[in-house]
Each structure stands twice: as structure tokens, then as C-alpha cells.
């Protein structure tokens, strides 16, 4: 039977609904940007790439968990908090430059791995409701860490909370420590912007490492444990161990991700900042084409870029278009509202899909 529009239909299916819609939307935004404003397009592209690199590793962190059959790791803020802990320790000890960055990464990843193992044990006990429990573990971790930041002894006076003199500040400045180290490494000027080669290279390196791992024997065992636990068990794979590995890896990568994010951003945001960061991260992965049960590295790359590009483009675009109007105050919220609708919409779509 020959159906109408067979070729285009196949093409659409290959591109994927989520990627297609977001890509079309992005293209439309870019067209308006180029033709309706005087802003620099090259600077915009550079910014989009920077934002993608900033968030890329966080999105990558979700992949091992999805592959291991644990679903979308809404508890990624737990990993973020571990990374923040590593950063805070290094900053408090005046760790500057590349050494500081490496220290933060190492401590964050180590604490993240340990926390991940404990988190995995909790998830094991709540098979079937991992996403829900993970969400609240993430919230609880952020709230618990807030208590820690407020009560911890601070040695570095630059980090101290302005009022009262004890506890860490809300936002720690990385100027003079390791702000933008990776971004500037081998940076290429591009029109009026700069492409953060070091940042992107590190992201691609991490993606490559995870991709290689997933092709290794352990990685294949992980994927098998996730897609068909009974068969995997029968083949002699330690399914429970694989799930623990997936979650621990996810948490550790989350820690690494937030350190990279902070160095690129230039600020370390403590207290309640990471509370809602799980949602854009999960949304980015889903936009790339992942589902609750499958995730590939290509999903990470495409999804992060598309999502971050849409967000990065919409803010200056909207600001430029509503300039001078009385309603600017309200309309300036359009990018934020769009973010809420897009990211939560896509998560809803993923949760309500019928999967075989």
C-alpha cells in the first residue's frame, strides 16, 4: 500500500517529533533575530555554544541512569550538591587556577560517587517509583546542603556571608580563582563573540568517555540490565550492581557538571539555586530524543544545544523587541515563561507516551 507523503513522513520520523519542533522553533527565532534586530548573530552563536557546553555535562550525567533502567534521574541535584561541596572546600582553602579546578572536580566526583552509591541503595528499595523519590531526594539534598552552607565554618573571608559573619554567601565569585579557565583555553574569536573551545572540548571528551564506556563489557551489561533485567539476570549479569553503577556514575557526573557550569558562569550559586535545575536538564535530554527508558549520547548533544540555543536566543530577542514599551517589565518574562512551558511540556510528553 502506498501512503501519501511516504518520503517526508519517513524523514520526520527519523528527525523525531521533539527535535523537529524545537529545531523549527529555533530556526524561526534565529530568522527573527537576524532580520528584526541589530544584534550580532556571531555573538549569539558563540553564546549558544557556551551555554550548551556549560550544561552539557549535566545532561550527559542523566544517561547512565536511564540506561541502567532507573528512569530519568530527577535526583541529579544530589550530584550537583556534591560538586558544590567540592568547589566550596577548594575555594575555602584558597585553591586558585587550574589546580583549584582539578581539585574541585576530583573532590566533587569522589563525594558524588559515594553519595550516588547510597542513593542507589535507596532507589533499589523503591523500584517503580524512582523518579518520584529521586525528585524529593534531590530537593531534600539541596535543603539539607543549605543548612550545611549556613552552619559551616568559613576560613576564606571572601566567602563569608555578609550579614552576621558566619556561613557561606549565597553566591561565591570565582574571579581570581578559576573563572572561565576552560572557556578561555584555546578560545577562537568568532565575529564579535568567542567560541569556548576548551569548554566544548571537555564536554565532547566526557561524552566520548561515556560513549566508550557504554560500548565496553561493563557498559553493555549496564544497558542490558536496564532494558531487560530478567534476561540480564539469567545471563549472569549482576543487575542490582549495574543499577548502582549507573546511579553512582550519574551522581558523579552531576558533580563534575556543576563544577564546569560554575567555572563557565563565573559564580558558584549555593543554597536554593540548584533546587529546580533538574528540570531543564531532563528536558534537554528528552528534547534530544531520549525517553524514560532509552538515551544515547547523540540525544545529549542535540538536545542540549537545541534547548540552550532556544533559551539563549529568546532573552535578548524579546528584550530588544519590547524595548521602550510600558509593558516591558511584564513582557521581559516571556523567555522565563517559555522555558517553563517548553521544559515541563516535554517532560509531560515523555511521561505520558505509550512505550512498548
Amino acid at each position, binding site marked *: 500500500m502506498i501512503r501519501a507523503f511516504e518520503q517526508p513522513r519517513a524523514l520526520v520520523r527519523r528527525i523525531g517529533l521533539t527535535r523537529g519542533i524545537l529545531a523549527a522553533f529555533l530556526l524561526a527565532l534565529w530568522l527573527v533575530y537576524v532580520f528584526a534586530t541589530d544584534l550580532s548573530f556571531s555573538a549569539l552563536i558563540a553564546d549558544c555554544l557556551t551555554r550548551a557546553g556549560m550544561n552539557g555535562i549535566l545532561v550527559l550525567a542523566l544517561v547512565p541512569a536511564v540506561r541502567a533502567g532507573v528512569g530519568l534521574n*530527577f535526583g541529579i541535584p544530589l550530584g550537583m550538591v556534591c560538586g558544590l561541596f567540592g568547589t566550596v572546600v577548594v575555594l575555602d582553602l584558597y585553591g586558585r587556577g587550574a589546580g583549584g579546578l582539578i581539585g574541585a572536580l576530583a573532590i566533587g566526583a569522589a563525594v558524588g560517587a559515594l553519595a550516588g552509591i547510597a542513593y542507589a541503595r*535507596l532507589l533499589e*528499595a*523503591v*523500584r*517503580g*517509583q524512582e*523518579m*518520584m*523519590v529521586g*525528585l*524529593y*531526594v534531590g*530537593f*531534600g539534598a539541596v*535543603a*539539607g546542603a*543549605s*543548612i550545611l552552607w*549556613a*552552619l559551616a565554618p568559613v576560613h576564606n573571608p571572601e566567602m563569608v*556571608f555578609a*550579614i*552576621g*559573619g*558566619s*556561613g557561606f554567601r549565597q553566591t561565591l565569585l570565582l574571579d581570581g580563582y578559576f573563572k572561565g579557565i576552560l572557556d578561555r583555553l584555546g578560545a577562537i574569536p568568532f565575529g564579535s563573540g568567542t567560541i569556548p573551545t576548551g569548554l566544548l572540548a571537555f564536554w565532547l571528551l566526557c561524552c566520548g568517555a561515556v560513549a566508550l564506556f557504554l560500548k565496553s563489557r561493563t557498559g553493555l551489561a549496564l544497558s542490558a540490565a536496564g532494558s531487560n533485567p530478567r534476561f540480564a539476570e539469567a545471563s549472569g549479569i549482576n543487575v542490582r550492581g549495574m543499577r548502582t553503577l549507573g546511579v553512582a556514575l550519574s551522581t558523579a557526573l552531576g558533580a563534575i557538571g556543576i563544577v564546569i557550569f560554575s567555572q563557565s558562569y563565573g559564580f558558584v550559586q549555593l*543554597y536554593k539555586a540548584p533546587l529546580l535545575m533538574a*528540570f531543564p536538564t531532563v528536558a534537554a535530554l528528552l528534547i534530544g530524543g531520549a525517553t524514560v527508558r532509552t538515551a544515547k549520547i547523540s540525544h545529549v548533544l542535540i538536545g542540549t544545544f537545541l534547548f540552550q540555543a532556544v533559551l539563549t536566543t529568546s532573552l535578548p530577542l524579546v528584550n530588544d523587541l519590547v524595548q521602550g*514599551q*510600558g*509593558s*516591558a*517589565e*511584564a*513582557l521581559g*518574562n*516571556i523567555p522565563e*515563561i517559555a522555558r*517553563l*512551558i517548553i521544559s*515541563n*511540556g516535554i*517532560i*509531560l510528553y515523555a*511521561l*505520558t507516551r*505509550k512505550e512498548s
Partner: protein
Amino acid sequence: MVRPRGIARVGGGARQNLVPLLFASICLTGILWANISIPFLLTDVVPRVARNLFLVLSLIVPVVAGMGLNFGIVIGAMCGQVGLILVENAGGQGLGALLLAMALSLPLSLLFGWMTGLLLNRAKGREMITGLILGFFANGIYQAIFLLMAGSILPFRNQELLLDGGVGLANSINLVGTGQRLDHLIRPSIRVSIFPIYLPVATFLVSILLCFATRWYLRTKSGQDLRTVGQDMHVAEIAGIAVDRARVRAIVISTCLGGIGQIIFLSSWGTFNTYQSHEQVGPYAIAALLVGGATVVRATIWHAIVGTILFHTLISVVATAAQTLVPASMGGAQIGEYIREFLVYAVIAVTLALHAWKAKRRT
């Protein structure tokens, strides 16, 4: 089955009511440690309980229907808020205006509750997280309407409701016409030492009415159908019950009650945080229900009542204790806030974990 006698009964009772007992002891510890005066506590807690009880009660029906904790109650809250906005915009005053707001919220709650129910039916087994995300999504739409369209595409008569630029609802709206009407209806005050404790009797009466209404409903055929669906969807299907329709019905009821409950809540406060009031409704009401001993599969009216009292007492105790015990230099007030949030999340996380663990043990 041999019923446990004597000490065994106490042990069994303790295990079943572990969570409320635990929280009661935390409250007691806090009160004794920080030397909090009971009358002071009551002036704070009594109005809070009156305000929140209705919302907590509206969570019961979905649990009975097997849909878990209705995180989608946020949507009902938003519908209620729309009702209030419309009434305040028209300049309504008095109890009549309040009732009108409730009436206006109902068609919206019916529509959105129905849509929520349909969506949750597509996510069987994942209702709670879907409801949660749906709440955030709906929040985005709500903001799109009230921040971007209010005043521009949707004309508003009462300019005081809007932001300075003329577009978008103000961040905080003073409920001039409808604030405090239900509370003040019957409001005796009991003087205990130097603290006058106001009892918002009318508000309590409305909530008690809902208690009886819920009990009555769950005994009707419709309510019993919901219960059957909650216990086992397959058995219900075989017994001829329209499972999907029953589930939608449960969510619609919860959403409508959520709308009314949010109106009661906000009217009691007197002002309303346009963009944030509804966000906190879900977790706080759910945590209150859980503190009372409810679980993901079982919630009774007593759980709601005991839970609301305990939860709000705990919040009050923790906030006051933190302020007195932790010196201001270490951010005492802030710590109280963090501990409060941590408790809310911890309560929900622990209950979810316990439930899933018990479910796993049974299989």
C-alpha cells in the same frame, strides 16, 4: 486471626501510627527545649489549621481511588485563584463575593480537572510525578495568561491589580473585597493569659462539613467504585466498573475541592501572592496529610485532621525554636526556613520510600 492482646496491641498501634507519633514527639521536644509558651503557639497554629484543613481534605479522594498523592491539586488552586481575581476585578465585596469566587472557580476546576484526569490515565503507574510536572506546566500557562495577557489582551477594570506598566498582574494582591470574610463571620476569641486566641469558627465549620461530605460520598455507589478501583484496577474492570472514568472523577472532585480550599486559604490570609501561592500548596498539603499517618495508598479523614494539626504545629515550633535557639548572627531566621523546607521534603521522600519498600516486600 487472633487479635493481639495487651502489650502487643500497644506495639501494633504504635507501629501503625509511627509517623504521627514521631512528629508529635519532635513537636514536644521543640516546645520543651525552646521553652515555647503554649498560648503563643496556639495563636499561631489555630488559624493555620483552619486555613489549611480544607485543602488537605481534598487530597483524600484520589488516594482512595489508587492514584496516589494528588500533586495536581495545584491546578485546582489556580482555578480558585482565577475566581478570586475575577471577583476582585469586578470590585465585589463581602461574603457574597467570596461565594461567587468559589462558584466561578468550579467550571474551571471541572474542565481542568477533567483534562488532568485524562492525562493521568495515560501515565498509569506514574501518576504522582506526572501530576507534579503537570502542575509546573500549568504554572507556566497561568503565568503566560496573567503576566503577559492581563491588562493587554484581557482588559482589567481594576487597575490596582496590575503591575506599574499596565500589563501583568501585580505580584501581591490585597484581597480588599473578599479577604477574611469567612473567618470573621463567626469569630469568638478566647483569652488565655495575655494572648487572645481567635477561633475562626465559620471556617472550621466549613471544613467539618467537608469531612462529613467526604465520608458520605465514599459510602455512595460512586465512592465505593472509586475504592474498588483503588484497591485493584483489574478486579474493578471485571466487576464492570468504568475504571478510567472513575479515576477522572476522582481527580475532578479533588480539583474542585482544591479550588474552594485555596479560596478559603487565601481569603484567610487576606493577601495573595499571585505567582507563588499555588506553588506551595501541593507539597505542604501533601506533607500535612502524610504526617497524619496517611500513605500513598491509604488516607482517611482522621489522617487529614491529625496531620494538619501536627504539621502546622511542627512548622510553628521549628520556626520559633530556630529563632530563639540559633543566634541571629548565624542566620537564625533563615535556618528556620531551611529546616522547615527540609522537613517538608523529607516527610514526602521518607513516606514515598516507605511505601515503595513495603510494596516491594509484598511481591
